[in-house]
C-alpha cells in the first residue's frame, strides 16, 4: 500500500480524493458518511450570505447524457448553492470538523460582490475551524443571473478584487474555483494569483443543455414547460478539464500555483492523469452521484497500486510529471512517423476500422474476401482513428525507426524537426547559419 497522504496548500488529508462542493456535500449526514467511506476531504456545498436562503426548483434539477447501457457520461444541473440556513450549515461544519480532524474540510462560498458581504461570511466560517475556503466563481446557472458565480469568474478584475478581500479579511487558505465558460482559462487563473489566492480549482461546470424533449419542444430538465441552461459535469467533461489544468500548469504566469483538479474524475486513473498534468489533488462529484461514496475505495486501491508499480513514495511525485510533455503543436516532431498495425490474432473482424478509415479518413485499410483487414502503409497517415474505434483494442501504432522509408511519402525517417523551421511555413525562421 503506497503512501497516499496529501498536503495541499498546507491542508493535510489521508488521500488526494476530495468531494467537490456539490449536492453530496450539502449536509452533515452526507459528509460524515463520505468520510466513513474513505474520502480524504470535502469541500462543503457553497454557502451564501446570512438571511433567507436561496430557493431551488421543485421539479427535476438534473439532465443527463447516457452512453451504451445507460452509463452516465455527463450530468448537468440547475441546482443553486445551499438552500439550507447559513447557521445550520456552519454548526454542522464545526461538528464534522471536530470529529474528523485528519480530513480536509473546505467551505465553498458565494456572496454578493461587495467587501462587507465577504468580510461577514469569512468571520463566520473561521469560527467553524474549517481548513480553508473555496471561492465559487464558477456556477454558470441561476446565481450568475444575480451577479455571482460565473458572472464573477468571467471577469478577471472581479476575481482579483474578491480574492484580495478574502486574503485581507481571513487567515484561511483560499482556493479560487474557476469557471470553464471563458475563452482563455489562464486569464482568470492569473487574476486569482494576483489577488493572492493560495490555489485554483477547476473546472466548475460547463454551460449546457443536455437534451431537448421532442414532444414538448423544451430543454431538459423541464420545469413546467420551460428549461434553462445548466452546469455540465461528469466523464464527458474530463478532456476539457485536463486541458485547462495543463494550460495553467504550463503557463509562465501561473506555473507553480497549486491546482485542485476537477472534471469527470471517476477512477484512480482519471485522478492520476489530473495530477500528472499539475493538479495537487482532485475533487470528485459526478462519480459519487452516480455510484455512491464507495467509489473512493477503487480510487484509493488503484492509485496505491500504480504508485507501488512506479515506485512513487508520495503523491507529490506524480504531480506535474506530465507538464513538461505538454507543448504547442508547432513544436511537435513532424519527422516522427508511425503506422497502424492490426493484430490479426486478436482481430474479431468487425470492420469498424475499415468503415472509419475508408469513409472518413485516408482509405488506408484493405479488406480481403475472408474479412482480413490490413493496413496499407503507403496510405496510412497514422491518424489513430482505427485505434480509437476498434472495440477490442487490437490495433497499435508502430514507430518507424530512424532511416526507415515511409512508404507513403517515400522519404526516410529523419531527425526531429518541427513546423517552425518547415519549408512550407511562410513564417519559418531562417535556418541557423
Amino acid at each position, binding site marked *: 500500500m503506497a503512501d497516499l497522504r496529501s498536503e495541499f496548500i498546507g491542508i493535510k488529508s489521508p488521500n488526494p480524493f476530495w468531494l467537490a462542493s456539490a449536492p453530496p456535500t450539502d449536509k452533515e449526514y452526507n459528509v460524515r458518511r463520505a468520510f466513513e467511506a474513505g474520502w480524504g476531504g470535502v469541500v462543503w456545498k457553497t454557502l451564501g450570505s446570512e438571511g433567507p436562503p436561496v430557493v431551488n426548483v421543485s421539479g427535476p434539477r438534473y439532465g443527463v447524457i447516457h452512453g451504451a447501457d*445507460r452509463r452516465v457520461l455527463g450530468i448537468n444541473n440547475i441546482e443553486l448553492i445551499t438552500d439550507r440556513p447559513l447557521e445550520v450549515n456552519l454548526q454542522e461544519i464545526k461538528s464534522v470538523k471536530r470529529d474528523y480532524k485528519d480530513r480536509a474540510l473546505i467551505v465553498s462560498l458565494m456572496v454578493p460582490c461587495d467587501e462587507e458581504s465577504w468580510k461577514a461570511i469569512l468571520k463566520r466560517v473561521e469560527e467553524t475551524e474549517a481548513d480553508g475556503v473555496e471561492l465559487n466563481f464558477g456556477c454558470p446557472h441561476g446565481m450568475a443571473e444575480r451577479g455571482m458565480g460565473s458572472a464573477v469568474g468571467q471577469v478577471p478584475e472581479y476575481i482579483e478584487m474578491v480574492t484580495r478581500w478574502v486574503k485581507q479579511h481571513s487567515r484561511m487558505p483560499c482556493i479560487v474555483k474557476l469557471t470553464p465558460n471563458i475563452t482563455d482559462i489562464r486569464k482568470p487563473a492569473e487574476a486569482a494569483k494576483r489577488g493572492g489566492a493560495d490555489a485554483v480549482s477547476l473546472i466548475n461546470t460547463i454551460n449546457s443543455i443536455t437534451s431537448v424533449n421532442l414532444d414538448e419542444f423544451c430543454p431538459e430538465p423541464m420545469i413546467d414547460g420551460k428549461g434553462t441552461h445548466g452546469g455540465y459535469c461528469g466523464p464527458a467533461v474530463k478532456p476539457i478539464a485536463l486541458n485547462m489544468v495543463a494550460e495553467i500548469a504550463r503557463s509562465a504566469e501561473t506555473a507553480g500555483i497549486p491546482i485542485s483538479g476537477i472534471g469527470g474524475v471517476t477512477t484512480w486513473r482519471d485522478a492520476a492523469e489530473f495530477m500528472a498534468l499539475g493538479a495537487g489533488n482532485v475533487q470528485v462529484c459526478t462519480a459519487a452521484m452516480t455510484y455512491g461514496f464507495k467509489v473512493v475505495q477503487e480510487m484509493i486501491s488503484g492509485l496505491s497500486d500504480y504508485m507501488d508499480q512506479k515506485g512513487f513514495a508520495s503523491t507529490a511525485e506524480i504531480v506535474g510529471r506530465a507538464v513538461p510533455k505538454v507543448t504547442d503543436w508547432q513544436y511537435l516532431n513532424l519527422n516522427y512517423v508511425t503506422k497502424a498495425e492490426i493484430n490479426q490474432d486478436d482481430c474479431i*473482424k*468487425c470492420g*469498424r476500422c475499415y468503415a472509419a478509415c475508408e469513409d472518413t479518413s485516408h482509405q488506408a485499410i484493405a479488406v480481403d474476401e475472408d474479412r482480413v483487414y490490413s493496413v496499407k502503409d503507403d496510405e496510412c497517415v497514422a491518424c489513430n482513428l482505427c485505434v480509437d474505434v476498434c472495440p477490442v483494442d487490437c490495433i497499435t501504432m508502430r514507430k518507424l525507426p530512424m532511416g526507415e522509408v515511409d512508404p507513403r511519402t517515400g522519404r526516410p525517417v529523419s531527425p526531429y524537426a518541427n513546423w517552425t523551421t518547415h519549408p512550407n511555413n511562410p513564417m519559418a525562421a531562417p535556418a541557423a547559419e
Partner: protein
Amino acid sequence: MTTSQLTPGVVPGRLSPEQYCENFADVAPPLNAHEARVAADRCYFCHDAPCVTACPTSIDIPLFIRQIATGTPDAAAKTILSQNILGGMCARVCPTENLCEGSCVRETAEGKPVEIGLLQRFATDTLMEKGAHPFARAAETGKRVAVVGAGPAGLSAAHRLARKGHSVTLYDARAKQGGLNEYGIASYKAPGRFAQAEVDWLMQIGGITVVQNWALGRAGDGTLEDLLAEYDAVFLGMGLAGVNALRLPGEELATPATEFIAELRQSADLATLPIGRKVVVIGGGMTAVDAAVQSKLLGAETSTIVYRRSQAEMPASAHEQEHAATSGVRIMTYAAPVAIHKVADGLEVEFARTEMTSAGLRKLDDTFRLKADQVFTAIGQALGPLPEGVKTAGGKIAVDGAGRTSVAKVWAGGDCAVGGDDLTVTAVAEGRDAAEDIHQYLMGA
C-alpha cells in the same frame, strides 16, 4: 384411475393441466424493453456485417439493432420485414446459432453473440402487437398470380406480389395457412397461436384471396394447366408433402413425426393427446428433436432419439441437441433400425449398431432392441406428386437462380425447390426473390 407418466401404453392426460401449460410455454421468452436496450447496446454496427451475410434473407441487422437502441422499434421492424415478411416467425425458429448469431463478431470476441434473434422478435412483436402493417399495396396492375402452398415460401411470395399490385390467389391443401409454421415446428417455439396471428397480420396487405383445402393435381381441385390457363404466372411452394419410408418389417407400426407434430399443433387441449410411456424417435434432424422433446413434454417417461451416425453428424444443430438433452431426451448414435416388432406389452424397435468405414456407414451384426409404446420416424420428407413437365433435380423441383422452373410462367421456391437449406428463412427468401422475378416478367421488363 388417473394416468401418470408411468401408465403403460399410449394414453392422454399423463400430466396436470399446470404441467402442460408450463411445458409448452415460450421456450425463449421475449425481451422486455430494458433487456432489448441492453442487448442492442452490445452491437458493434460492423462494416459489411457478417450477420447480414449469414442471413438467408439478408436483413440489415446492424441497422435494425441500432433502431432499437435509439428507441424506434417500429422502424427496426420495418427494416426486418422489408427483407423478411415472416421476420416474426424467423425470430423464433431460425437456427440463429448457425446463422446470424453464429457469425457475430462478439461470438469471436467473447463467445457470446449479440442476441439477434431475441432482438428481432422484440422489434417485430412491438410492431405486430399494434396491429400495424408497415407496407402499402401498389396500384392494381391487373395481373393475376396463383401461389400454390401457403407456407413460408408461398406467404412470402404472395405478400411481395400483392404489394406490387398484383392479384394473388393463395391455394393450400390444408385448412389453415402457414404451412410448417402452423403444422410443423415445435409448439413451444411459437406459442400463443403466433403462426395464425402472423398470417392474419400479413394478409393486411390486401389483394390476396385464399383458397383452402385445395391440392395441386388432386381430383376436383385443379391442375397446373388449369392454373396457367387462368393466371399470368404460378408460384409453386407446396413444400415436401411426402415422408421418406423406413422400408423395414413392421414400419406400419411407426408414425411419421410430422403427423404427430401437426396433430399436437392443432390440438386444442394437449391433455387429450395420447402419448406413449416409452417413445422412440428414429432420425437426427430438427423434426426428430421436435418430436422427441414434445413427447417428453407431453409426459412420456422416456423419449429416445436414435440416429445411425455420430452425434456431430446429426442435422439438428448443437443448440437443438442441447435443448433435447436438457429436456430429458436420450440421444443414441451409431444405430440403424432394422425392424419394428409387436410384442405383448407394446412394441420393440430392433437396431443394428453401425460403424463408419472408409466405404461409408456399415451395419454390424450386433443388434439390440428398444422397448417402445410409440415409434416416430423423422428420416426426411419428400416431394409429393408433381405435374407433368416440371423437371426435378435431386428429388426437388429444378429452378434457376430466380426460381424459374422448366415450365414457362411457373416459378418455385421453399422446401420443394432446389437450393438452400430447408429452413423457414430460406423459404421466405426464395419466395420473395421469385416474386420479384415474376413481377419483372409481368411488367415486361
